[in-house]
């Protein structure tokens, strides 16, 4: 903007740019390195380490301060100037730090995890590129830039999911992920275009900032117009009614729907969530960074950015969808046997919580949960990575034909992998939301606010907090099941193959350090000194909405206690079922089991209802093109050919025919005359008679 920035601000901006650009530089350098170069990992890690430090400085400077905003003219199109710049407020600073902070352990972990891969440097090229896109996404100040990085994030995720591109499943998964994300992108693009048509600017700060335009506009009388009720009383009458062109109100809804589509695609919400479980075909470290901690949170981040756009009704829809997604994903996670799939569905479920929180107005809690979830989910994925890595090791060493990700083969690993076991327990407890973990703080905040929100609303909407509550117990169950199956009991693989060798361990420091780091971050002290009251968390306090109710009502006490006591029971039940086997076992043929195991059949339905018809449409179009349009052309061609034939015929038989018939006449006269000299008696006679006749006639006539 025109206002000169302070010197310190200038420094902060350049720090931000450096933090964003360093991974890009690393990515470009790695791209130029030979594919097997081992230096790649350290280049990327160094870039992200420096980026992390810079982000921390930026965060410290920006947090709870005036937002920083700077921009430069990018290009002009018509009369519209499109700017590119950086917007740093609480939200973006938080995400900036969070992403770098999560990316750092993942990078370290990856250097060991991908050590034996043939395309080691490519991996880090992609990973750094992802970091660049993600960091740029969070600091971008223009909707166009935002969209650009939004899609680049999806693109790098595409590259990383399909990193082992010779695996057919991986390739299918990355195609699916990209196309589903594209659906969301279309929604976002439409929303951006609609907002641009309404407000004539792409600037996020001008649109959604403190004095943003969007706040003062709302659906009114069928027009998307200036809404007086949204206008703060102390704000000047800069925007007067009718000063801007307005669109019909329906476009406000469509814009919101578009943004919701984008959120649903990126954050894997129903109905666009099916790509995320498939995306687990990528390397596990990638799943940890992209598909658990950062990229999938971008949807929530987008909601946070454009929050003022949504009206109350639209927020309710969001809450419903979030709740439903959380519940559905949790039920599916109950029965999956693939280690990473369980975690993927739990991610979807937790993202559902965040959307739900956005929907019920728990803006702060949502982002708080986003931050805590990023740490413990990343941790869980890295744990899964270690387990899978060791299982793979067993598989290769003993030449077994097993799926290293199947939890049915595992068990009793706590003795072999003690460190992994401990951090896994920390992560799981955080995921369940047991006190003393960060998950407790953020999740209970969501639940409490959801209940508060449903006060005074219709009875149906009370289902939302109830569903969320129920889902949290489901979460407790499936997480316990997972942990129990992996770490407790006996190693089930030994039953089938008693003579296998087990040379497994927690791995080197590249494995241990990230796990410990993340485990520490998953505990309460990072966020709050008070392990029981979420509203005391510094992160929440800075982001909480203005009209936040302090511990006034009963929910604040009753819910955490109720949830946690029941959760503990559920955990014990899981332990009892899967380790002791002294209680009932689940029927594996029931409808609910199959529904859950087959992921609610959504993939199949999509395939039948959407993919097939679209391919069919393509075929039909092509048929139409070949036969109708081309056929039309060909029939015109045939017609003209027929005309040509006709004229050719005319030429041959009419025009030429005239000449030929003249010739034929002459010839026939000749032939005729010749006949009289052909030696036949009758012709002589004939001619004689003819002459006589002619004489007669002449005589009569004359």
């Amino acid at each position, binding site marked *: 903007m025109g206002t000169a920035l302070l010197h310190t601000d200038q420094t902060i901006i350049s720090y931000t740019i450096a933090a964003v650009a360093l991974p890009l530089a690393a990515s470009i350098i790695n791209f130029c390195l030979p594919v097997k170069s081992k230096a790649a990992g350290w280049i990327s890690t160094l870039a992200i380490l420096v980026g992390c430090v810079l982000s921390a400085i930026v965060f410290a400077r920006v947090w709870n301060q005036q937002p920083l905003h700077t921009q430069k003219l990018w290009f002009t199109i018509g009369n519209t100037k499109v700017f590119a710049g950086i917007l740093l407020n609480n939200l973006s600073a938080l995400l900036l730090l969070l992403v770098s902070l999560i990316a750092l352990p993942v990078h370290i972990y990856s250097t060991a995890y991908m050590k034996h891969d043939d395309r080691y440097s490519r991996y880090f090229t992609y990973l750094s590129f992802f970091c660049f896109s993600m960091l740029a996404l969070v600091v971008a100040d223009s909707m166009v830039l935002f969209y650009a990085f939004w899609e680049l994030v999806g693109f790098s995720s595409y590259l990383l999911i399909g990193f082992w591109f010779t695996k057919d499943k991986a390739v299918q998964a990355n195609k699916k992920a990209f196309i589903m994300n594209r659906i969301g992108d279309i929604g976002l693009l439409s929303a951006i275009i609609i907002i641009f048509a309404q407000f004539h600017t792409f600037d996020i700060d001008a649109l959604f900032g403190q004095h943003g335009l969007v706040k003062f506009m709302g659906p009114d009388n069928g027009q998307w117009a200036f809404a007086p009720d949204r206008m703060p009383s102390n704000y000047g009458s800069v925007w007067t009614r009718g000063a801007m062109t307005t669109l019909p109100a329906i476009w406000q809804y469509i814009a919101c729907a578009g943004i919701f589509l984008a959120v649903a695609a990126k954050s894997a919400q129903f109905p666009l969530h099916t790509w995320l479980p498939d995306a687990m075909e990528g390397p596990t470290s990638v799943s940890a960074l992209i598909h658990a901690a950062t990229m999938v949170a971008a949807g929530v981040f987008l909601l946070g950015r454009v929050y003022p756009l949504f009206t109350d009704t639209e927020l309710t829809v969001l809450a419903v969808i979030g709740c439903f997604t959380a519940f559905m994903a949790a039920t599916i996670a109950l029965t999956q046997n693939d280690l990473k799939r369980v975690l993927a569905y739990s991610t979807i479920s937790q993202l559902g919580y965040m959307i739900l929180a956005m929907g019920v107005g728990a803006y702060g809690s949502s982002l708080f949960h986003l931050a805590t979830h990023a740490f413990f989910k990343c941790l869980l994925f890295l744990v899964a990575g270690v387990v899978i890595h060791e299982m793979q090791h067993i598989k290769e060493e003993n030449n077994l034909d097993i799926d290293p990700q199947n939890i049915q083969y595992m068990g009793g690993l706590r003795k072999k992998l003690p460190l992994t076991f401990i951090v896994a327990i920390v992560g799981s407890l955080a995921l369940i939301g047991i006190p003393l973990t960060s998950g407790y703080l953020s999740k209970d905040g969501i639940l409490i606010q959801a209940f508060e929100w449903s006060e005074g609303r219709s009875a149906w909407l009370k289902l939302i907090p109830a569903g969320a509550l129920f889902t949290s117990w489901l979460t407790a169950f499936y997480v316990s099941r997972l942990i129990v199956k992996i770490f407790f009991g006996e190693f089930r693989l030994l039953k089938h193959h008693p003579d296998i060798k087990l040379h497994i361990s927690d791995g080197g420091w590249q494995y241990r350090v990230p796990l410990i780091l993340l485990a520490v971050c998953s505990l309460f002290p990072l966020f709050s000194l008070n392990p029981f009251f979420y509203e005391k968390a510094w992160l929440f306090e800075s982001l909480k909405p203005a009209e936040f109710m302090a511990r006034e009502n009963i929910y604040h006490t009753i819910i955490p206690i109720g949830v946690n006591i029941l959760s503990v029971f559920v955990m014990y039940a899981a332990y009892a079922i899967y380790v002791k086997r002294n209680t009932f076992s689940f029927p594996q043929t029931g409808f609910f089991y199959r529904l859950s195991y087959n992921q609610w059949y959504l993939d199949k339905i999509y395939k039948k209802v959407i993919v097939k018809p679209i391919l069919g449409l393509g075929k039909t179009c092509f048929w139409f093109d070949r036969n109708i349009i081309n056929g039309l052309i060909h029939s015109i061609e045939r017609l003209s050919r027929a005309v040509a034939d006709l004229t050719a015929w005319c030429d041959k038989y009419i025009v030429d025919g005239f000449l030929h018939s003249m010739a034929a006449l002459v010839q026939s006269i000749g032939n005729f005359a010749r006949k009289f000299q052909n*030696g036949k008696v009758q012709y002589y006679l004939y001619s004689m008679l003819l002459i006589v006749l002619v004489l007669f006639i002449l005589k009569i006539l004359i």
Partner: protein
Amino acid sequence: MITLTDFLLVGALLFCTGMYMIVSKRNSIQVLIGIELMLNAAILNLVAFGKYDKLNNGGQVFALFAIVLAAATTAVALAIVLNVYRRYKTIDPDEIKNLRD
């Protein structure tokens, strides 16, 4: 009363029929029949006019001569036909083209 014209018209018709046969037929015998027809037409005329010559009976007498001559010519013609057939193995006048230049 039957007038002279009636006879003449019948004769004319017969004459033309005969002429048609002579010109068109591809069989010598049919040609011969045509000739006979023409002759008969002529005889009919002679007879018809002969009605008005009671004294000399010119018409009828010449009719008789004509009949006799027709018999004679027929005999000769048939003899020729037979000879032609013997030589050419056909009696189609079209096939006999030795008169051609």
